[in-house]
């Protein structure tokens, strides 16, 4: 009885809403139950641990970046003038100062743009003449690993293609990916590493990350494990998205092969891409990189997406004879199972039948 009263009073105290009488009642009870004094001490010592959230979203970055945005908006949106109507010299000089700064910024951007254009063109000419490009193709049913001329390691997942130069130039490293790959990029301060993947470009200095950009998939995913990358959208060159470790960027892809699937019109610009902080994982074992250990981790995936994974992993073609099955949700972890075992396991949780005909699998 008294113990639950202690908890009740502690809750009030924690919420800063205990009256003086209640506080002294609590103190009296705690002196009789010293073990609860320990509980109280622990509750008092609980602090939001900064390290978890901040590891993913550093406070400094948020404050500086956010403030920068806010002042930009304050300066450009109407209705931010002093409402009292009292003109004062300070604000005038500020205003002038701001204009000056904006012009300076615009000029700087212009100069940079010109410079980079020149640089890019000169580099482009050079690299075209100097390098031979190679293509690594991994067919469905297998994965592969290649080491590029700079020591960067690339693990390619099933059904993927990587186009890369035999030798990188000293100033730039560029590759093109179709499908899924995990990159461990070697550090090189003066030669940024650029991955072209469908409608995005990922720019890195030295880091480990996963890109999933199959043409037929609905989304392009970039998952960063360590380091820092910058992602640019091809259809919106202005947009540069910085990713920090343990973040995943998802960009909506419009697969050309599937024109039936029309995105809802209310999907706004903001929704075309999304940055998520990945939930804390043990030893960096993320769903996104499970394929590196030949695992397939499914959490509430549409059967339709799962079918595509199976097609790549087992080099089969899946037909939905009953198209209602496409919407079924599938969860599970698969590792060493063969395709028949996988289907048998799926059958335990989802109602369907299958027929295997050589490399063709019919689901009904």
């Amino acid at each position, binding site marked *: 009885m008294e113990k639950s009263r202690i908890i009740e009073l502690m809750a009030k105290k924690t919420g800063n809403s205990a009256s003086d009488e209640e506080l002294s009642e609590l103190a009296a009870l705690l002196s009789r139950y*010293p073990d609860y004094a320990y509980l109280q001490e622990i509750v008092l010592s609980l602090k939001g641990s900064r390290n978890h959230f901040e590891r993913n979203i550093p406070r400094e970055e948020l404050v500086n970046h956010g403030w920068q945005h806010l002042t930009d908006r304050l300066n450009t949106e109407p209705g931010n003038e002093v409402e009292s109507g009292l003109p004062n010299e300070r604000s005038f000089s500020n205003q002038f100062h701001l204009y000056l700064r904006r012009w300076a910024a615009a000029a700087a951007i212009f100069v940079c743009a010109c410079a980079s254009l020149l640089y890019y063109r000169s580099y482009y000419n050079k690299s075209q003449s100097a390098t031979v490009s190679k293509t690594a193709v991994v067919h469905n049913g297998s994965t592969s690993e290649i080491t590029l001329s700079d020591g960067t390691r690339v693990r390619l997942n099933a059904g993927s293609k990587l186009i890369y130069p035999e030798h990188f130039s000293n100033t730039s490293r560029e590759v093109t990916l179709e499908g899924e790959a995990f990159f461990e990029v070697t550090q090189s301060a003066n030669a940024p590493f650029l991955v072209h993947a469908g409608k995005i470009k990922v720019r890195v200095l030295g880091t480990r990350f996963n890109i999933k950009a199959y043409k037929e998939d609905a989304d392009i995913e970039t998952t960063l494990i360590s380091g820092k990358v910058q992602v640019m959208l091809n259809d919106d060159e202005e947009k540069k998205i910085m990713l920090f470790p343990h973040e995943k960027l998802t960009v909506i892809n419009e697969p050309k092969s599937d024109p039936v699937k029309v995105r809802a019109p209310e999907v706004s610009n903001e929704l075309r891409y999304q940055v998520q902080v990945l939930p804390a994982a043990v030893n960096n074992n993320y769903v996104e990189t499970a394929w590196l250990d030949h695992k397939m981790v499914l959490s509430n995936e549409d059967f339709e997406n799962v079918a595509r994974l199976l097609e790549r992993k087992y080099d089969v073609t899946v037909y939905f004879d009953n198209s209602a099955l496409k919407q079924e949700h599938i969860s599970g972890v698969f590792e060493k199972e063969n395709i028949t075992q996988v289907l048998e396991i799926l059958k335990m949780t989802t109602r369907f039948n299958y027929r295997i005909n050589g490399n063709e699998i019919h689901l009904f």
Partner: protein
Amino acid sequence: MNTLLKRIQFENDETAFKELYEENVFKLFQFAYAFIQNKQLAEEIVNDVFLKLWQKRGSLDSIKNINVYLYVAIKNTAANYLRKLTSKKNIDHERFVVTHFYLSPDPEQALITNELKKTIESSIDQLPPKCKLIFKLVKEDGLSSTEVAEILEISYKTVNTQLTIALKKLEQLLKPFLKPVHLKA
């Protein structure tokens, strides 16, 4: 905080505004993130709120409690965004995702082992989302139960009940470890 507001309202003091921003941006960002789970949008929501605050700085003195005001503004702005995106009418409190929030004991303040620290952290992490959010707002953001009740539009009693749930969980967990504290002489 109140002197900051006065400086903003009567002197158009931008440095005061920046101070107010820096002091609050991180916790408001986390609060917005709990609704929307999108870094860009959460940041935009926080900035929307501060932009509005600056625009109507002439009437700042009508705000009774700036803490409550800021959180409520974040909640409403987030609700607007969510409505636009999902056409949901009201924010469903059960949908809060506070997965990225941890409370951990400060070993300097309480006598605990590392192992116990981990146990406490993971058990708080497993509290139901609403309970965890309330516990976080109280413990980390330093809001009182009455303020939390106002912000989340729930009764004061509910807030206390949720806090009690959190404490009971800790009590249960600590039972095997509970031992008398050596009171400082």
